[in-house]
């Protein structure tokens, strides 16, 4: 059982480390190709939507976003006409077959009937209008992802039956690997090696029409520990697509990757191939580290470390850090509150016989406070934790997660065998920098 951290003075004030529901909804829409989006909101909310499109790295040439730019009179008098006009203009200019009409806090609270408006306006609009109510107050980014998934659920048709071994991959973007596309590619590659086809990646670089065959998949695999569980459950109940591997950590580190591969292989009856992949992967990691990183053994052994991450990585990293790198995970701080993730983490640390301090749903203040009061040697997190560590006098900070302070040009998986090496490479470089003198001590050379 983990030791759950409690914080004072945090009942009413939060220093958020997660975006709001609007960003989550936009993150689902941004994953669908060739659609446009009209936000019924003051102009500032456009930044939140843009952030979601940035997260999918949607090329600037392909963004079709309009905003009603609500002002005070619109709030008082209502702005349905303004929205109608923008929808007409966007339909004409953007020329997309589907347009999401998204109401944010302001429109949501003043009670703009976006659904009714879309229904009435639909006959004169070429694009199919999909209304979504996404006031930021409806939750955090993960709640927003769940809302967005709900909005596109009607497009999912009942399966016509498919014979192939195929899966859907769910919510790859709810992941704080700054280039999470690397993880997605890695997972696809692993599945390909097992002769398992990916039916749909929901929602990333997909066409809305793909949802027509979504239910043909034999299983859903959730790539996030933070969002999508309700959707996966609904799909299980209504479409008969089982969620597999919903109760084990993501494939991070050797043991978790092996467990993940074996689980999916068992489901599809591909055990033999799985063992080959595992053998080759583990060999590759050991071989490279033997040649290039032998000295990580004395470096990392019994290093007391704090992990600050989302549930996807925060839960999955612990075993790698403790059993494979011989570090001591003392503090595990997870940005979201998620009961499923909490249960998995509890099982994990119990099986390892460790008792780190843990907190879910932490904000900036709590992370900083926990770091200040800890006795860790190093922090594994984002650039936020890097700056906090500097203040807290913690010498080493591994800047792995978003928002990161590193330039990354090529997508780098953190999941799987290469992913482990990618993470170790960053950890190794940050370690070196932490111990290099900041200035040359010229007196010693005089």
């Amino acid at each position, binding site marked *: 059982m983990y030791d759950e951290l409690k914080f004072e003075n945090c009942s009413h004030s939060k220093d958020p480390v997660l975006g709001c529901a609007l960003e989550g909804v936009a993150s689902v829409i941004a994953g669908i190709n060739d659609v446009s989006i009209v936000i019924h909101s003051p102009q500032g909310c456009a930044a939140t939507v843009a952030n979601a499109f940035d997260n999918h790295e949607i*090329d600037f040439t392909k*963004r079709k*976003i309009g905003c009603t730019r609500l002002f005070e009179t619109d709030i008082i008098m209502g702005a349905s006409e303004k929205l109608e006009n923008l929808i007409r203009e966007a339909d004409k200019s953007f020329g997309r077959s589907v347009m999401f009409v998204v109401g944010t*806090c302001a429109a949501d609270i003043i009670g703009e009937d976006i659904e009714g408006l879309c229904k009435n306006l639909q006959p004169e609009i070429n694009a199919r209008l999909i209304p979504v109510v996404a006031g930021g107050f409806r939750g955090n980014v993960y709640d927003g992802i769940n809302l967005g998934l709900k909005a596109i659920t009607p497009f999912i048709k009942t399966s016509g039956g498919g014979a192939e071994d195929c899966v859907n991959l769910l919510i790859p973007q709810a992941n704080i690997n*700054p280039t999470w596309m690397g993880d997605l590619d890695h997972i696809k590659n692993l599945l390909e090696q097992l002769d398992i086809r990916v039916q749909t990646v929901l929602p990333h670089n997909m066409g809305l029409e793909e949802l027509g065959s979504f239910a043909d998949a034999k299983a859903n695999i959730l790539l996030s520990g933070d969002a999508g569980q309700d959707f996966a459950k609904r799909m299980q109940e209504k479409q008969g697509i089982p969620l597999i591997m919903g109760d084990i950590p993501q494939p991070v580190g050797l043991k978790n990757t092996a467990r993940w591969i074996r689980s999916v292989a068992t489901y599809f009856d591909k055990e033999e191939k799985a063992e080959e992949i595992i053998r080759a992967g583990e060999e590759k990691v050991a071989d490279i580290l033997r040649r290039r990183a032998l000295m990580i053994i004395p470096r990392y052994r019994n290093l007391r470390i704090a992990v600050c991450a989302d549930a996807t990585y925060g839960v999955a990293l612990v075993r790698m850090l403790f059993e494979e790198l011989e570090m001591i995970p003392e503090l595990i701080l997870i940005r979201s509150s998620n009961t499923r993730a909490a249960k998995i983490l509890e099982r994990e640390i119990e099986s390892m016989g460790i008792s780190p301090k843990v907190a879910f749903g932490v904000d900036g203040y709590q992370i900083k406070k926990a770091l200040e009061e800890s006795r860790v040697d190093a922090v594994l997190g984002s*650039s*936020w934790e890097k*700056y906090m560590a500097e203040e807290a006098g913690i010498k080493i900070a591994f800047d792995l997660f978003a928002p*990161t302070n590193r330039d990354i040009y090529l997508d780098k998986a953190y999941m799987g065998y290469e992913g482990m090496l990618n993470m170790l490479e960053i950890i190794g470089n940050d370690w070196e920098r932490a111990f290099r003198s900041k200035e040359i001590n010229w007196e010693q050379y005089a």
Partner: protein
Amino acid sequence: MAGKIDENIVFYGHLSELYQLAKEGKIKTGLQGSHTRPCKFWTATKILSGIRNSIVITHGPSGCAYGVKKAYKLTNSRNSGSPYEPVISTNMDEEKVIHGGEGELKGAILEVDSKYRPDIIFIAASCATGIIGDNIDAIVDGLRSKVSARLMTLHCEGFAGEYRSGFDLVFKQITKLMDAPTAELKKQLERSVNIVGGKMGPERTEVDTDVKELVRLLEQMGVGVNSIIAGNCSLEELKRAPSVAVNCTLCLDIGYAIGTEMLNEFGTPLNSTILPYGISATEKWIKGASKYLGMENEAEALIQKEYSHIKEEFEEARKKLVDKIAIIEGHDAIKCLSIAHMLERDFGMRAVIYNFHPWNTGARETSIDYLLETGLDPEILITKGTLAFGKYESMKQTEEELLDFIGGFDKDSVVYFGSSLSFPSIPVVDLNAIMNRPRFGYRGALKVAKCINTALEYSFRKRSALFKKIVFPEKSGLASAGSMTSKLGSELPDCTVYAERRRGKCMMN
């Protein structure tokens, strides 16, 4: 002018004419639904991010606080070495939106005072709480005696005003944190100034910034800087700010709001000029300050000394530029007007500002008035693409229109002042590049001259095919730099830098 441009022109004439048309409602000044700017909440919190040891409590859902924290505070940490800076939210959820969030706000203020011990707590209203009508002022008034920090409310709901209204609101409001001048303090600060109109936070230590150059000039003259408001200023600095000899605007437009407020409230004199790009503007800035400092002689000596250092190189560059045409990218209204001022006054060039959005005639009224009063009236060219609805396509349109426009010029007679992400066939001078700083002051004038010389010297080199391909993907045709939101984060107006993935990102798309 090239023939084809005529078909694309929405406006071509002088700034004064555009200004008049806009006032008479004869040209569309509104922004399109695809051209969003930061809202009032964002601009207000941008200024607040420049006040040290203060905490902003956003009374609303968490997204607003999270957004500005990631944009401004994380950038402060990344670029300027600031410690981690929080932005607090009362985290309004559906239930609180229905039943009201006054209790939450009360609790948040008490918690923040206790856990952060800040000098000031700013309570910023968001759209959600503005609409449901939480009585923020009453709550704050009721708590003043119960907390150590100074409390200040800001009604900066995102819908409550245009983009720049957030700047003006905060600058006006923070004068309430200031103490009236005293004879003793005035004596103490008789040779000190405030630089007003700054925003966001401390200066980068590793960059020769414009602000640092102004501070250097002042110090050379024997003048101290009490505070840069609001560029990492403290409550103590703000308190004594009205007692300085004069407020000098950093950005005329934004600095004017606080400068005027302090003039009216405390009688603090205001030295308000256009951005001190180039010699003529810098001279005005220095002389304007010296008048109130009683240091005209020192100012004159400084001007002579500074100019003598750059004279030879500067005059050499001027020879190559005089009578040439300068096409200035109009994305950033204040900057392009200041550059036009410099190029006309210092280099004797003919300035044409390209695609200055008519929206600016309202939003940047102060600067335009100032420029016209000084007798400068640059030419403005606006093409259809600037006013078109859409994103990439309209940007593509403006780039094509630019190329049409420039098609009639040769590279020896025209210089383009804009982003290196544009690819006209004439020399490009990108004054935003970090290595081209400072741009202010005499050193700045020399830097600009050098920058122009280098652009001319290497104008024989074709622009990199690789760079062009990065900006203008083959299948998509041409795009303008303005659409390169992920790359121009730190350069374009109204944009800021996100640290996520270490890429510059535009705040607005």
